[in-house]
């Protein structure tokens, strides 16, 4: 039973990717709908299995580490698997209608989509550093391909910039892995954490840690390494931007968080933790500020991603050298922030895609009059914005509330200022879009009306992110599912 589930989660996407490479866009769409049902089913079944017993290690195909691939199914991984199933399915459904099936290169959407999904699942479930690297590269290469699907020179330039930045990040990470292996002689994260506890004060490992963190920060677009993100996310087709912002940047952050939580107590330093926090804080302020200035709608949303990613890096100072309870709070806040940002940002990009489809322009100033013709999509955009502003009862509010408490309880009050300022600034850029769209006199009197399904999907995602604050407790209980050694 369990082996079927694990095989389902990792091999269904790979198989679907290969098969959909052979067929056209329309057949691929049918195939992918079946695949999405399978994936969601497998993810939910894995949840029930872990809730019934406990988390476990799983050796793929019976091959044990170090040469086999070892998977670690714990609460955190499970939360992300479920999130991926929800968001990727929504984006896939949206893309099936949104993308123009008559453009010949669009048929490559489905293979890339499925490779991306396979890579994401591999990262959430990976238990050793090298397989995490492979998963990360699979994600990067398919994400770059998806950005390039736009086909024009701007899309290619953005995707090349993205690819080069991501490759430098991967190489820095891989060099860190090489140093770690030289130091510890193991690749397993759990084994490394054990060894680091036994032999404290290893200097080479600190350098390796810093290298890996830098590489991952580059791939997560942490300020000031965020330059590649806004062009890539802004220029990609809307369902692709939604996937990239909601899930892809979270993969490298997830690895950084895993590394930090396992190895940070022994190999991290106060300076590294505070540095990550300060950069995160600067990302919040700088990203939100630039989002207020962008003339193009999708660039606004993309810069808002830079800002929201910044909050995630507050995890580092809030879990270093603090009590267990505070660390727990910070981790819960981080998880909720990832989930609520994934849902809200996917909703926002998809709604922005509808608005652009309707007005035929990417500029904020051209939104005039759209509030009459497309109130539903605009409303989804706003609901997602409410979650980004972190007003109650949204998921964003619950996340920031936990982070706020963690920073007060650990005596690091200065992070609360960042949390408050970030909320205000995000309100500013969301209202800016609204102001533009309520202008009545518009030169445009022809608005294209996108199909209902395109409008329903972002609305559902936005409602999920809105209701997240109400179901935060049961959601966090998934993360806290017990983890057993056997499997």
């Amino acid at each position, binding site marked *: 039973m369990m082996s079927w589930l694990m095989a389902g989660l990792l091999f269904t996407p790979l198989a679907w990717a290969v098969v959909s490479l052979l067929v056209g866009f329309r057949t691929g769409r049918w195939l992918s709908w079946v695949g999405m049902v399978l994936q969601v089913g497998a993810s939910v079944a894995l949840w029930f299995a872990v809730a019934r017993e406990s988390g476990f290690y799983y050796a793929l195909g019976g091959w044990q580490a170090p040469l086999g691939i070892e998977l670690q199914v714990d609460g955190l991984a499970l939360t992300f698997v479920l999130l991926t199933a929800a968001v990727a399915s929504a984006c896939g459904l949206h893309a099936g209608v949104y993308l123009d099936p008559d453009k010949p290169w669009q048929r490559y959407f489905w293979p890339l989509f499925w490779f991306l999904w396979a890579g994401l699942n591999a990262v959430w479930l990976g238990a050793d550093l090298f397989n995490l690297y492979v998963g990360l590269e699979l994600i990067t290469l398919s994400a770059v391909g998806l950005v390039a699907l736009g086909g024009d020179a701007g899309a290619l330039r953005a995707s090349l910039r993205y690819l080069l930045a991501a*490759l430098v990040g991967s*190489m820095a990470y891989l060099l860190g892995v090489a140093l770690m292996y030289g130091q510890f002689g193991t690749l397993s994260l759990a084994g490394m954490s054990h060894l680091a506890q036994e032999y404290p004060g290893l200097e080479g490992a600190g350098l390796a840690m810093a290298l890996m963190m830098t590489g991952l920060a580059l791939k997560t677009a942490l300020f000031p390494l965020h330059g590649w993100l806004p062009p890539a996310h802004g220029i990609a087709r809307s369902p692709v931007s939604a996937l990239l912002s909601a899930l892809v940047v979270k993969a490298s952050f997830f690895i950084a968080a895993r590394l930090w939580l396992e190895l940070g107590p022994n190999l991290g330093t106060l300076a590294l933790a505070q540095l990550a926090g300060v950069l995160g804080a600067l990302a919040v302020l700088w990203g939100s500020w630039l989002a207020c200035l962008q003339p193009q709608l999708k660039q606004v949303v993309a810069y808002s991603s830079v800002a929201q990613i910044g909050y995630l890096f507050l995890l580092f100072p809030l879990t270093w050298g603090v009590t267990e309870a505070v660390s727990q709070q910070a981790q819960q806040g981080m998880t909720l922030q990832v989930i609520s940002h994934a849902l809200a940002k996917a909703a926002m990009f998809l709604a922005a895609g509808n608005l652009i489809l309707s007005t035929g322009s990417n500029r904020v100033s051209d939104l005039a009059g759209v509030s009459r013709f497309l109130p539903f999509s605009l409303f989804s955009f706003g609901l997602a914005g409410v979650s980004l502003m972190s007003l109650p009862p949204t998921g964003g509010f619950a996340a920031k509330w936990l982070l706020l408490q963690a920073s007060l309880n650990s005596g690091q009050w200065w992070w609360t200022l960042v949390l408050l300022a970030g909320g205000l600034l995000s309100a500013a850029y969301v209202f800016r879009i609204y102001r533009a769209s309520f202008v009545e006199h518009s030169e445009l009197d022809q608005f294209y009306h996108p199909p209902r399904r395109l409008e329903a999907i972002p609305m559902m995602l936005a409602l999920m992110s809105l209701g997240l604050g109400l179901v935060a407790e049961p959601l966090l209980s998934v993360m806290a599912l017990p983890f057993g050694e056997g499997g």
Partner: protein
Amino acid sequence: MSVHLLYAFAGAGVFTIGLFGMVFMVHLLRKLLAFNLMGSGTFLVLVGLAQHRNGVDPVPQALVLTGIVVAIAATALALVLIRRYFHLTGQVTLEPGSRDDEGHS
């Protein structure tokens, strides 16, 4: 200093040269070659550093093999993109060209 450590230091040096090229080179193909140099440096560290025990450790060899496959895939993707980009714009660098400015106005 043992010979393995020498390999590791050489690898770190090659990596640094590659990183330098990645940051300061402008031509896209040169950037791509610099990336491959970074890869080679990393693989040298991976194989060189991990040989400190008796006998040959098979794990780094397997890792490097996988790493090479990943690097080839990345290089191939980058080449396809660069080629298409060159066909569309006639440019070999990422410097914002005239088309970008037109898009904004």
